[in-house]
């Protein structure tokens, strides 16, 4: 079974670096690994020093990587639906359908939907032992991970409503025979059978997909970690992420305290910062019981390239030095 790793956190805390190092490390020990960046900020290519946007690129023997282009995905998908509709339903030309799609393109939730579609596509690939996801900033990613549960509430209500529609059609059929209606200027036979109704079929298949993703996100094979820093605001954000994920029954496995400052005799200018760091770590240990907290020190320079990322894995992530 493929193991899935998600690295969440607010912008700029080092999610791409940590997730890339983790993927590079697991690939080095022979696990066939795919590293996927879902972040529209596109920083994975920079971390790996290899352009991976829009395609899966071989990085080393066991490591592949890609960075999905969310905007392009949304554009392509809506274009496909729009073309199908225009060719299928002639009467829709009077509705100026392009206008509807422009609204859809900018409607709330469409980015989250595209990201979820991306995740669905990658987790269905069975050639990998490990899939590591570098994610967009936490607020959006929490909504993505929670979307299957929210979608199921809507889908189940719509299925119940659709059943009422089909049952009324059946009643009319029982008295009148086949139920015909005028659709787009043509007489069309409307089905009352669930298995023949395309709307019901879409609802049921969407429900099955969302159930599979909901179960995957809460399963043992899906591991969610948070990358953060030892600062008051970052701690509050981390607690909010953990709380929000808990509502969706998604446990957090590890918290990585990135850019941790280990200085024996700190200069006066940063003494306050070091003290804040110490008190945040103490509070974290108390408040995040059951979650491993791992510190990664502030490095002399930003890690770039697989070899440097591998060293980061070896030095700090492999054993998971707990605070």
């Amino acid at each position, binding site marked *: 079974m493929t193991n899935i790793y998600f690295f969440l956190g607010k912008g700029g805390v080092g999610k791409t670096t940590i997730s890339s190092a983790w993927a590079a490390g697991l690939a080095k020990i022979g696990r066939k690994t795919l590293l996927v960046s879902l972040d529209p900020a596109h920083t994975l290519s920079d971390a790996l020093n290899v352009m991976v946007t829009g395609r899966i690129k071989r990085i080393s023997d066991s490591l592949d990587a890609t960075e999905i282009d969310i905007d392009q995905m949304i554009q392509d*998908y*809506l274009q496909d*639906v729009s073309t*199908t*509709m225009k060719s*299928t*339903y002639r*009467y*829709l030309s009077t*509705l100026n359908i392009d206008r*509807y799609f422009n*609204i*859809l393109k900018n*409607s*709330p*939730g*469409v980015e*989250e*939907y595209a990201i*979820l*579609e991306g995740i669905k596509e990658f987790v269905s690939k069975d050639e990998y032992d490990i899939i590591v996801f570098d994610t967009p900033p936490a607020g959006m990613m929490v909504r993505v991970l929670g*979307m299957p549960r*929210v*979608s199921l509430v*809507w*889908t189940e209500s*719509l299925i119940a*409503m*659709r059943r*009422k*529609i089909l049952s*009324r*059609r059946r*009643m*009319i059929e029982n*008295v*009148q025979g086949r139920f015909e*209606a005028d*659709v*787009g200027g043509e007489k*069309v036979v*409307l089905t009352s059978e669930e298995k023949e109704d*395309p*709307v019901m079929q*879409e*609802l049921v298949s*969407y429900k099955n997909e969302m159930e599979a993703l909901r179960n995957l996100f809460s399963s043992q094979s899906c591991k969610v970690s948070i990358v953060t820093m030892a600062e008051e605001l970052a701690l509050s954000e981390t607690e909010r992420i953990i709380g929000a994920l808990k509502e969706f029954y998604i446990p957090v496995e590890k918290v990585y305290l990135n850019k941790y400052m280990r200085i024996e005799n700190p200069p006066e200018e940063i003494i306050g910062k070091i003290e804040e760091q110490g008190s945040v770590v103490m509070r974290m240990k108390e408040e995040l019981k059951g979650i491993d907290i791992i510190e990664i020190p502030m490095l002399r320079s930003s890690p770039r390239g697989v070899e440097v990322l591998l060293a980061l894995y070896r030095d700090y992530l492999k054993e998971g030095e707990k605070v």
Partner: protein
Amino acid sequence: MRNLFEVIKGFFKGVDRGMREVSTSLIQNELEEYENAFALLTMGFLSGLPSPPTGLVIRLFPHMQREIQVMMSKSSGLFDAFGSTMGKFSVD
């Protein structure tokens, strides 16, 4: 004689069809209301209503031909909603 039979048969067939249509007219109205509500719920993003996840809307959109049409025809008759309700119950 045969022609007369056909005429009488046709007459009764017409009466039968008419009665069947009358007997289901309220169910048809109810059906249209459900279809209208289904379209409004799934396409609420167009009018500011709470809407299902966009992914679901996008997937349903291509199959919603009938419901979109019902919704449009219902909304075009909204200026006389009272009259249309009375009409359904044959109140002149």
